[in-house]
């Protein structure tokens, strides 16, 4: 079993947990799924770090672990406790159809990336369609769910997909860019949390549908 197969195996798990995000209808379960998904992303980045020997990638993996597996889920758990809403009751598209659409999205991204020719040395070719699929699933979560927390989770899933694509195809972006992205995501999640709390206090709900009633 070569190292690129190990990377493909681990990133397949990232995709599985992205699909599980669609399956869940409890907010706690969604956040836990996100944490596990980020954990597998960390594993994938560390494997690439071992393969390529770049010291930057070890730090990236460590930061991924600290921010995405520990800090962001911790923040979101606290947020769920604070606003007291535990369930995603009715998404725009029901879960059954969402799952089928997700399957189509994954197959579409595999079909699409078949035609793409990546020049230069690629660590693991099959990771590219997987990360495209994760990005598409993240966007799909953002548009198909009503609750603001699941929409944040969709955004974070999308970000994981970009991270996976970046590390597996190019052996990581320049270090300063990655630091920037990490703090962007972290501060983004923090601010979105505060905003959700504000939505909760003014509407007694975190249904973003209700924002459309903000008219003069």
């Amino acid at each position, binding site marked *: *079993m070569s190292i690129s*197969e*190990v990377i*493909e*195996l681990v990133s*397949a*798990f990232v995709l*599985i947990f992205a*699909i*599980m995000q669609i*399956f869940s*209808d409890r907010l706690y379960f969604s956040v836990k799924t996100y944490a596990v998904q980020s954990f597998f992303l960390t594993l994938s980045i560390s494997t690439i770090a071992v393969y390529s020997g770049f010291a930057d990638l070890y730090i990236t993996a460590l930061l991924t672990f600290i921010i995405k597996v520990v800090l962001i889920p911790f923040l979101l758990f606290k947020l769920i406790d604070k606003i007291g809403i535990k369930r995603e009751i009715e998404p725009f598209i029901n*879960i*059954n159809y969402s*799952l*089928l659409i*997700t*399957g189509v999205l*994954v*197959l579409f991204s*595999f*079909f699409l990336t*078949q035609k793409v020719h990546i020049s230069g040395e690629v660590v693991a070719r*099959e990771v590219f369609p*997987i990360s495209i699929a994760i990005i598409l699933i993240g966007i799909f979560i953002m548009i198909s769910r009503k609750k603001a927390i699941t929409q944040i989770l969709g955004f974070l899933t999308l970000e994981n997909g970009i991270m996976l694509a970046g590390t597996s195809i190019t052996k990581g972006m320049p270090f300063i860019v990655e630091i920037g992205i990490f703090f962007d995501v972290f501060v983004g999640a923090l601010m979105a949390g505060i905003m959700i709390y504000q939505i909760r206090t003014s509407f007694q709900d975190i249904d973003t549908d209700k924002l459309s009633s903000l008219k003069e």
Partner: protein
Amino acid sequence: MENLTIGLIQFFILVAISPLIKGFIHKVKCYLRGQKCASIWQGYRDIYKLLKKEIVLSSDASWISKVAPYIVLISTLITASFLPVFNSHTLLSFTGDIIAFVYVLALGTFFLALYGMDQGSAFGGLGSSREMTIAALAEPALMMVIFTFALQTGTTNISEIFAKIHQAGFSQFPISSVFALMALLIIALAENGRMPVDNPETHLELTMVHEAMILEASGRDLALFEISSWIKLTLFLTLASNIFVPFGLYNETTFVSVILGIVFFLIKIFLFAIPIALVEISMAKLRFFRVPDLMTFGFVLALISLVVYYL
């Protein structure tokens, strides 16, 4: 003659360890919950105790109730004799391929459902209808997983599929295999009535599925149903462990390789039983109307694994 002996040994090992697997899963769950627990050999004692007791049948029961336990057991035993456990020479592999494997198991499920309705109790009918719903939803996903491996190896004969996978070493299609494995885990949980779909530990709950069908069974009938369900779980674990950890299935029939094969098989199957225990203690039972979502999840994973292999 040698092949026949090996086929018989595999068959008997599979049947003999199935109560042990059930006891082992129970033991792991108890350990993780910090409970005191029945011995790991409890399954054998239960079977022994039940076999001594007399059968009480409801006065509404027809001949179906008399034959159903035997048909369920026999269909499970036939599938057990299709499946290569630690050697590719099986007892009946020349008669049926992996599609027959699925549908002979389904015959057992069908008669179990008939038994549930035949007794004239309300619970049995409920259980049967739920079981048939779940079985109908799990079947396409299971077929997808099986077609994935049939395509990878170019045959539907179980022995050949296993032999080819073992020849190739650890899977050469990692993404496809991971998706198939997760799909198979979900299907195995649903088909065997394990935790997120059905609770195997209770006998009196409105939402039970498998236990509701055999609620009226007693004595020898109950023993046959119990041992069939344990063998079915062992069958799924053997299938998964031999496909996804392809070490230790030997083509040779020397004494040493057979012993090594048995040891490897036992290690693998107990390792594969642990995730089931972990899922059971960490998840609550799903609402029945959420089960189709879970099955769709399994189906989508299986579909992806099939198509990814093609692309």
